[in-house]
């Protein structure tokens, strides 16, 4: 396959970026999208150029590190797939592909396609946990949890924290990410004691980080590589309203 790539290049967070165009050939349809970038980078290095920086690690769709905005869509054209799992057979010979970093003011660009997503960590640090010190736990089976609740909690917990939801959202809202963690914990019996405090604290942190508000476009769910449902946002909003009304 031969392809024309238009890739966002930006030296660091302070500098201005812009697109550069690269022609690549000899691409096999069995390559992953990132392997195609490996080939291009190898060539750039051999030519004495500067390889394109991009985040990636596990390359099996679970660590959440890869984060390319491909042809106007986070993680590219296929649903339920991360960039690292996207294969070149999803493109056709001769196609032009535009690749950008996640665009959101809360995710400043580090270099080229690499962004800083530490805002997500701070949202979790604000309340995305159950306060249980090591050694305090009772026997695991002494907390029976119905399969439907366990499954629903698990589905929310499948979020990989990649930030595609923010990149997809016209408001750069982190509602899907934040609500997924809230929804995982708030549905479980273990999560009840901190349910409302958690919701308030995490939502406040989300706002503080500069993420926009949710206006129910649903783009986040559509583009989420783990297909996390916007039902979680509804749960979060319900608990947030309850928490706000019940407070003192």
């Amino acid at each position, binding site marked *: 396959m031969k392809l024309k790539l238009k890739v966002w290049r930006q030296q660091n967070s302070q500098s201005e970026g812009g697109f550069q165009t690269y022609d690549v050939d000899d691409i096999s349809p069995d390559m992953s999208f990132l392997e195609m970038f490996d080939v291009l980078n190898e060539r750039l290095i051999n030519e004495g150029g500067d390889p394109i920086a991009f985040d990636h690690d596990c390359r099996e*769709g*679970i660590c959440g*590190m890869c984060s390319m905005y491909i042809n106007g869509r986070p993680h590219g054209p296929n649903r339920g797939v991360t960039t690292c799992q996207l294969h070149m057979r999803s493109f056709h010979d001769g196609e032009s592909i535009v690749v950008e970093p996640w665009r959101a003011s809360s995710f400043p660009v580090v270099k080229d396609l690499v962004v800083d997503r530490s805002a997500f*960590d701070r949202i979790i640090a604000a309340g995305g946990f159950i306060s*249980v010190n090591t050694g305090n736990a*009772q026997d*695991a089976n002494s907390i029976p949890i119905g399969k439907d609740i366990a499954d629903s909690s698990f589905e929310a*917990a*499948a979020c990989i924290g990649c930030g595609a939801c923010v990149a997809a959202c016209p408001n750069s809202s982190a509602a899907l990410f934040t609500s997924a963690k809230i929804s*995982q914990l708030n549905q479980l019996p273990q999560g009840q004691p901190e349910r409302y405090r958690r919701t308030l604290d995490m939502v406040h942190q989300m706002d503080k980080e500069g993420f926009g508000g949710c206006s129910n476009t649903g783009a986040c769910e559509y583009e989420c590589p783990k297909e996390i449902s916007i039902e979680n946002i509804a749960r979060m909003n319900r608990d947030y309203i309850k928490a706000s009304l019940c407070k003192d």
Partner: protein
Amino acid sequence: MSLDAKIPPGELSKKWSDYKSKVHLVNPANRRSIEVIVVGSGLAGSSAAATLAEMGYKVKVFCFQDSPRRAHSIAAQGGINAAKNYQNDGDSVYRLFYDTVKGGDYRSREANVHRLAEVSGNIIDQCVAQGVPFAREYGGLLSNRSFGGVQVQRTFYAAGQTGQQLLLGAYSALERQIGMGKIKMYSRHEMLDVVTIDGKARGIIARNLITGELERHFGHAVVLCTGGYGNVFYLSTNAMGSNVTAAWKAHKKGAFFGNPCYTQIHPTCIPVSGDHQSKLTLMSESLRNDGRIWVPKKKDDNRPANQIPEDERDYYLERRYPAFGNLVPRDVASRAAKERCDEGYGVGASKMAVYLDFASAIKRYGKIEANKHHLDNPTEAEVITLGKEIIKEKYGNLFDMYKQITGEDPYEVPMRIYPAVHYTMGGLWVDYNLMTTVPGMYALGECNFSDHGANRLGASALMQGLADGYFVIPYTIGDYLSGEIRTPAIPTDHQAFVDAENSVRERIEKLMNVKGKHSVDHFHKKLGKVMWNKCGMARNAQGLKEAIEEVQQIREEFWKDVRIPGSADEFNPELEKAGRLADFLELAELMCIDALDRNESCGGHFREEYQTEEGEALRDDENFAFVSAWEFKGDGNFELHKEPLVYENIKIAQRSYK
């Protein structure tokens, strides 16, 4: 220097509880002024850091990824073992201990493994309390499944994402302490050296990967939780960034390296598809609960799998190992696959693959479902539809992943699989306290050598990482730190910090100044090929001797001809890769030396010269029942120390899964 494993005296089953009641403690007021550095944020690192911070220690955590949640523990699929005996099928602490020692081919330390089995149940309790959504039955209780090498159901799981859920639990606990200001987190930082003062570990030099700045950090103790070194093979199931650097730097500062040649080759991975391949993807061992492994009985049979009739298929694991069938341990399953492919029975375009087939499981589950739904005479199509739903519920994400990568639908055609490098049992040598041979420096999780002997059983890596972090280090570190309460924080302008930083800077400058012709990957691929062919699934003396020379040659070429673009004072992934490869190039030689020295076959270490008539691994307990602990003596020079392995509670036997 002689090795002292510091195994507590007394009866095996009482060692750990006796130890805990007698170990020296640090009182809560003193913990506030004691600083601990944790490197790595996977299961071992996150759980250790969170727990130590809960206890009151001042903790700093370092990881090279952009967030601690990305550590490669996240990719573990199948599950975590625990001797809960919830299934009432005869499980016990002793049985988990026994299975693990046997699974490790009698090359692990009894006392450590028993402790692991003892705390396994606490891990499940802790994780459930944190909100880890394990799979459950309709009655609300936890569900279990089987894994290789055992005959009970003791594996807890969360679909095919168990590692993710456990890591996110530990990450939550970590973030909670970060939010409370008790842990300072350094993401996108890579440890590049240990600082030792008067023989004790007192801190690290870390590189800020965004700015390129070198930073000095003091700690009363340094805890390495930096994972395994499978990427020495270039292609492995490890993440792209997984590396040996922290452990190797520790080794060069005096920590002995234990059993470096013990590598786990996982039997069920998606086969290599071409030269462009950057990594290999695992298909969880849990699939062997329901998938049947086979090859055609005829050599070079090019018919599609579905057109090969039942009686022309060789279910070779079921044939060779009727007692364990498809659930033999990983080393056994991998070698059996290699044997069939080497003999010419392999399938797929490369002929280096075997089938993992779910057709009969789909039918079996379909019939059970049909009964449940009171369908008296279901058609075959109905049965298959019902069966597929069950398979989807159990393994859906794995099937999707397979389809994504290969473009084939495993609900319709059998998966093609082949063994790949997955885990390294070897690692830094540690004593019972998990302390390396450098006082004050600990190694937890995959980066130590301790619990899995020569072969790790499935669902035991998660168990070990969390056992070490949640339940072992919080006790054992007190034994050392209780002697450190009078040591004030050492200022980082101390000469030892200055020297360490200078040597790190020199090495970086040396790398940058090579200005050669070839990329880092060019050399890494070369190294990987040598290691896979000569120090991989099967090894022999001749090949290993060649490998040592070839590795030395690649190392020499690398230092003469590597090209690293950009500068050292900026975000520079190529420089990161180069530093890691430089360390792999040194480790690779030690792996070959160790494999050459161990004149026996055991677990993942299969020396072709030492096998039974049936092709099974042939141990030599008389001469090799020891841990090889290698001391660094200068470039390419290593001295062997032996820790004898004494089995008082298990009768050593030829491992049999027949």
